[in-house]
């Protein structure tokens, strides 16, 4: 666990603020913005202080394909 971590990206442009990702994230990594954006949507956002486990629950449930997940690994020197 030490040499890899996961990055979650909310593609805010596609997000509709349904909050499903927030509900389904087992880690509490995501939350809904208090302030509506210009479209009037309170989009999802990522908490910096919580670790993502890359379980993909959020991306799987998101109806708007507004989440991207990347695994980041330190290079292995062989």
């Amino acid at each position, binding site marked *: 666990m030490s040499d890899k971590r996961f990055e979650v990206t909310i593609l805010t442009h596609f997000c*509709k603020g349904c909050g499903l990702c927030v509900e389904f994230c087992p880690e509490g990594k995501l939350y809904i913005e208090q302030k*509506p954006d*210009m*479209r*009037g949507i309170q989009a999802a956002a990522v908490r910096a202080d919580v670790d993502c486990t890359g379980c993909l629950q959020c991306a799987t449930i998101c109806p708007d394909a507004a989440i991207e997940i990347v695994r980041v690994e330190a290079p292995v020197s062989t």
Partner: protein
Amino acid sequence: MQPNEQAAPAATTDQEHRLIIAGFGGQGVLTIAKLLCTTAMSEGKNVTYLPSYGAEVRGGTANCQVVVSSGVIYSPLVEQADSLIILNQLSCDRFVVRLKPGGLLVLNSSAVALDDASQTGARQVLRLPAADTAARIGNVKVTNSVMLGAFVRASGLVAEEDCLAALREHWSRRRAEVIDPNVTAFRRGVELAAEA
């Protein structure tokens, strides 16, 4: 037959006010429009109320074109508005061009930024932190009543007390428990407009 002669026969010198109310779906745009219309009717005026409908509604903006007149109303379409009541940014971007020179522009400044209002040629631009005001009243849903109160005061289109009566009547037949916050919001709107 006149397009709406049942309500009031045609007058020769008609006073006509054409307005557009626009916002996000769910912001209560249609309620503002309906209350303005019923109030005007109770005052013996003619009205037309033309909502946007259909595919536009879903997740997009809702808007309503209202005409109030002492005489016959021909087109219910408001191409050039005497007033605009704008609740969100998208609506502002879309409708501000439709304001007549010398018209009245009422903005929910909690959600709308309009940097250069002078371009609109408006007689008066009323920026109300309506959503914030509503939140302070304890119910964001009454944002529309803040806007309504402010518009009624600023335009003088209908009498405040008539409009309040219509508002009470409206909610009493729906959700009586929200009459009070709406009345408060309406009054707050009137005050805000008066202060402006």
